[in-house]
């Protein structure tokens, strides 16, 4: 692992900022060296790059996206971009659904959490889209359980909600060419799993924390 930012990553970040003209609001916290998991709504391929580019440059070198292996390993170019340029953590989607027994599913799930915990190490932060897939921008979908388990596994890491506005209109699912509308990125107040809090309660609270940061109404 290296701590330097790939020049191509900086270039892509600049392009993404240019297209989206993103304005960044730190509404619930300030940029910080602390290890964090930034979790946000997901509607566009540009989401990660925009969120990443919104961080101060000294934090960017230590912030890694979590991405779906099945999607990003389709071509050599994709794999290069995601692993070499952005130093992403690639997770296998759907391993738990494919498992033959509940036992095996639990084991696969735990392996994913361990993989993310290891990727955090003692200095990295992660960018996570807990919906697990891109939505249509109308409503933040329900969160996968990974966020909850990872939060329990690494209670020392801060969980920061973020809302990306308008990204579904800039580059929606299924489109290749972006429309340069303006976007707004709001970081909210960090949250944590309360003692004894149920998985579903926490995930709904986290989803609400992201959703409540929305400023512009839906179409």
């Amino acid at each position: 692992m290296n701590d330097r930012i790939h020049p191509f990553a900086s270039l892509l970040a600049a392009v993404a900022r240019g297209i989206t003209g993103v304005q960044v609001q730190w509404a619930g916290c300030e940029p910080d060296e602390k290890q964090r998991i930034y979790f946000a709504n997901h509607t566009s391929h540009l989401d990660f790059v925009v969120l990443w580019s919104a961080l101060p440059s000294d934090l960017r070198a230590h912030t890694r996206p979590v991405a779906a292996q099945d999607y990003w390993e389709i071509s050599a170019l994709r794999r290069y971009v995601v692993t070499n340029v952005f130093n992403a953590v690639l997770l296998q989607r759907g391993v738990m659904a494919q498992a033959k027994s509940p036992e095996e599913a639990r084991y696969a799930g735990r392996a994913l959490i361990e993989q993310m915990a290891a990727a955090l190490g003692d200095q990295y932060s992660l960018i996570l889209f807990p919906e697990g897939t891109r939505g249509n921008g109308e409503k933040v979908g329900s969160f996968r359980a990974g966020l909850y388990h990872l939060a329990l596994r690494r209670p020392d890491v801060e969980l920061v909600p973020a809302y990306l506005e308008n990204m579904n209109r800039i580059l929606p699912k299924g489109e290749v060419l972006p429309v340069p509308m303006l976007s707004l990125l709001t970081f909210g107040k960090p949250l944590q799993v309360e003692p004894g809090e149920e998985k579903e309660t926490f995930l709904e609270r986290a989803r609400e924390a992201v959703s409540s940061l929305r400023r512009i109404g839906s179409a």
Partner: protein
Amino acid sequence: MMLPAIHDAKLAWLFGGVLFLLLVSTLIGRWLKRRRKGEANRATIDNLNERIRAWWKMCAIFALAILVGRVGSLVLFGLISFLALREYMTLVPTRRGDHRTLFWSFFVIMPLQYYLIGIQWYGFFAIMIPVLAFVYVPTRIAIAGDTAHFLERAAKIQFGIMVCAYCLSHAPALLLLKIPGYEGQNARLLLYLVIVDQMSDVLQFVWGKLLGRNKIAWRVSPNKTWEGFFGGVLSATALGAALWWATPFTPLQSAGMSFTICILGFCGGLVMSAIKRDIGIKDFGRVIEGHGGILDRIDSLCFAAPIFFHLVRYYFVP
């Protein structure tokens, strides 16, 4: 590249006048800041100073573009169109099915409009958006297949292209006009339009702040008053008339032109305010400090430019 504008003494006088105004207003702003009292005043004065600072930057960019010549003006106005269209489309609700149409608006229709001015093809420039884009936009949305709010969506997109690209592009298109006895001096005509239009906005604001009592359309824009309107329009018209020496007009013609620019500028501001009211926002964006967005600054120009262009073309181009 040649810089013919640099040898234009009258143009230099116009810019000198703008510089003088900026200096005076900066000094007044400083003076007000030192003797201000009370919180409400403070916010107004800070906003005023912010606006003056932004004016310095805008004037510097504009002067540079004019000095570079036709290409400079086209690039500058093309960029302004782009930013304005971006603010507009961001705030006007569109649907997923509009994506490709919007892409075309930004990256084909809008640049083509400015390219047509660049190659001086007046006939195509005049009909491209009102005729071709008008047919293209609803067709493309129909092909995309989503019929919900169809007419609304097509109208919103067409209106955005009309205002931000078509109307505004008439300002740099002034450089195309071949006015006998005025060859190579059209940059001054563009500057004249922008000065009168923007000063009309500023003076309406100032008169409104000083004397404003009776609101014109309080539902649409609470800041527009009859006192501000008359004071602003009359003083900006007087200013425009006094600038006749920079134009192909006589003093009386210049007063008429300026009056038209002021009235249309007012209409533009009113219409854009109505749109903002409808969407439920105060400003279109936050790009220029103190001014709201780009579109808030140029709304008056969008309405004034095409009419001014055609008046000049009708009466002064044989």
